């Protein structure tokens, strides 16, 4: 598993733009807000709690092609599956690297964004917890959808149609600052579902 993690992190490092894709997209979505709704402090704080979830959802959705599809299309998935026969190990390493490469940068810039949107320190920690658990669950969801639709080309709209309804519970509870335990539970359920369905998807591909 460590070799797989190292390989995926090197891959992200070599294509260094990967680290900036989601965070720059996330920032751009948030920057649009004051232009649309003005710079009233209270209004911005309320909007911030909701719009970060839209930013996070879109960021994760737009990068889901990179979980398995890139390796599938160039043939690297064959090598990985041959060398590491445990599909579950491959899937877990994908969860970790996808979160580290595409979600961690969001958490690094989150304090600055919170400051710009006048979010209090107490609220910031709750937003952080919500986003942390929510982002894990969302990564589990896009991973299994990515595995199930492996080999289907130009289907980003189809994938979005499958994924967005599954994101809805995270969005509903995510905007409530006290509901991080529910998000944690949702993420745990997503993990259990995801590990089985992703392995099934990869098995279908291999066959």
């Amino acid at each position, binding site marked *: 598993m460590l070799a797989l993690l*190292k390989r995926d992190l*090197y891959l992200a490092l*070599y294509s260094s733009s990967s680290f900036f894709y989601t965070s720059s997209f996330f920032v751009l979505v948030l920057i649009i807000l004051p232009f649309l709704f003005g710079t009233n402090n209270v209004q911005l704080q309320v909007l911030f709690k909701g719009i970060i979830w839209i930013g996070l959802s879109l960021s994760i959705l737009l990068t889901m092609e990179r979980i398995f599809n890139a390796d599938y299309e160039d043939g690297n998935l064959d090598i990985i599956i041959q*060398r590491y026969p445990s599909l579950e190990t491959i899937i877990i390493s994908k969860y970790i690297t996808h979160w580290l490469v595409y979600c961690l940068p969001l958490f690094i810039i989150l304090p600055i964004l919170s400051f710009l949107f006048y979010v209090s320190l107490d609220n910031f920690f709750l937003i952080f917890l919500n986003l942390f658990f929510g982002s894990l669950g969302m990564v589990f969801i896009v991973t299994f959808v990515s595995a199930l639709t492996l080999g289907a080309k130009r289907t980003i709209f189809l994938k979005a149609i499958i994924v967005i309804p599954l994101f809805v519970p995270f969005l509903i509870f995510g905007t409530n600052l006290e509901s991080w335990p529910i998000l944690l539970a949702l993420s745990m359920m997503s993990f259990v579902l995801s590990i089985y369905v992703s392995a099934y998807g990869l098995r279908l591909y291999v066959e």
Partner: protein
Amino acid sequence: MNELKIEDLTCYRGENLVLKDLNTKLKSGETLVIRGSNGSGKTTLLRALSNFIKSYNGTIFFNDKNVLEDTNYRLSFNFVGQKNSLKDNLSVKNNLKLWEIIYQKNISYSKILEDFNMSHLVERDVGSLSDGQKKCISLLRLNFTESKIWYLDEPFVFLDEENSQILIQKIKNFNTNNGIVIITSNINLQNTFTNEIKI
């Protein structure tokens, strides 16, 4: 002495029968060329032999062990498919580095590239290489493991005369070191490798 034995192999892709009752046996130092038209099941056969496809009728034995039950079998072979397993946006060196991590083997990039006289390409982006150059680099994966069998799916596609001869020599050297090779090909290789079956 290693032995690969295929007994009554029948394989379906979806509902289509692509291989029927295939029987053959290969020993150390032998190369088998599988010829057939497009869609005849050559790649399917290689993927079954490589344990990617597991739902087939018949049995594949390696050293008298059923490959479906032998957990060490996956380390016995090297499969080079039609896809190059290269990232177009990375340099040749970085692609080799990624393979190095997967195969957990340290190699000298310049030395390995000398096989196909490509040392000068080490810093080039793969996306800027020709299909033939990409194919040569993808075949370098054969150097990353100490395998006993090579499964090569259409390895001569895109290769020029010079690189085809280099590959033939590599295969013959591998045979000399007791390696077994199975090649699928559309082109006639009977002058080079006499052991051939048509499917």
